[in-house]
């Protein structure tokens, strides 16, 4: 018997017992509870008769730096990080004004890779001045967190992959060389094992 059939059998039995109680038992409280159980049993049966789909988590992917052969693959990894672990998409959009922070469409061709790297690791290093008030201009602090520190804490390889993605999605040549990636053997910090 499959799980669905088992549950269907239980649902039918509940309805049957409830019906018997309604027919033969006089106590009002028991009757009302039997009525409730019958309604719930019927609901379960309906839910069991529609298409049954479970949602499976994706297979866990282990990425090995040594296996990356092409820049395209690096950009694809960067794309995944951009939309998951890096949490970039929580604020930034690509080609939409709905986001809470600057839109990143074409950012790979507007900015150099060094500038993007600096924006990710030292977001307060180069910020606008705020003149919209009395007196002297103030720094207008960026909302951007340090991407290489906790809680997001991407390692160097991951940041390079994200930059590769930003460049490729802007239609630019990826200027990150695969030789720049730290391999696990040369990496000293334990955090680099992740990529």
């Amino acid at each position, binding site marked *: 018997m499959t799980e669905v059939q088992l549950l269907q059998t239980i649902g039918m039995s509940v309805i049957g017992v409830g019906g018997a109680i309604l027919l033969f038992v006089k106590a009002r409280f028991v009757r009302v509870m039997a009525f409730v159980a019958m309604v719930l049993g019927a609901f379960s049966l309906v839910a069991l008769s529609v*298409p049954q*789909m*479970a*949602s*499976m988590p*994706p297979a866990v992917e282990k990425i090995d730096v040594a296996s990356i052969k092409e820049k395209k693959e690096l950009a694809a990894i960067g*794309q*995944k990080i*951009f*939309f*998951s672990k890096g949490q970039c*998409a929580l604020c930034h*959009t*690509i*080609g*939409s*004004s*709905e986001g809470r922070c600057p839109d990143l*469409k*074409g950012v790979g061709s507007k900015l150099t890779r060094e500038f993007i790297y600096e924006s990710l690791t030292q977001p307060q290093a180069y910020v606008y001045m705020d003149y919209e008030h009395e007196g002297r201009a103030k720094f207008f602090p960026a909302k951007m967190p340090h991407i290489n520190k906790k809680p997001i804490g991407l390692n160097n390889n991951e940041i390079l992959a994200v930059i590769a993605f930003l460049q*490729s*999605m*802007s*239609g630019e040549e990826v200027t990150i060389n695969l030789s720049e990636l730290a391999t696990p053997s040369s990496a000293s910090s334990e955090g680099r094992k992740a990529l």
Partner: protein
Amino acid sequence: MRGPSLAVKGGILLAAVFVALKFVLPLLTAPLPMSLIYLYLFLTIIGIVVYGTLSGESTEALLGPIFRFLSGEGIGGAVKSARLAVLVLFPLLVGWQTYGGLAPNTQPPAESRTIHPAPPGEFVGLSNPLPNTPENVMMGTGLYAAYCLPCHGPKFNGNGAASDGFNPPPANFADPGTIAMLQESYLFWRIKKGGVGLSVEGHPWKSAMPRWEVELSDDQIWKIIMAEYAGAGQKPRTWE
């Protein structure tokens, strides 16, 4: 109360709804699946019961004849034999249904494929990096003719020469229910990852769409997308 009782009227209404859905509707359009007919009949029954039990008198008019028929009180003649027939046939019907539900058969299980499942997160926020210029669309149309046309057809309606070989058939882009309700990023995902890239609810084993990332570059895919919208006369869905 004159005329037929509420119970009889209700029975006639139920039968009429069934006949209309099962036999009259197919004359005008495609037949309805049984699951939908049962749903509408169920709603009709709710309506009859609710209306019939509004007041004490109508409850009697609805349920009285049914109870009398079943208990056999104060009926006679043909009705009495009808009652006997119902009492014998009903258990047989239930038994037949149960048997039909359990016996193995050659019918494949009902179809429940989700045609447009949720895309993976890394594709949701993408946008087309290329400007929508006539040259780009023209290049896309050329690529479409080379790679997509055999299945999706010269008129973008899923009616290409090879389309007959596939079930489910290739998507019809002219249908407002396909690319018109999707964003460009969704098409990018489907073209790039193909049928095998679908999630389980999309039944990846059924789609014959190739994984075009093997042969086409991202830019080429974006151009094809522009060509498809232009050719099918649709606009991509936007959120602002």
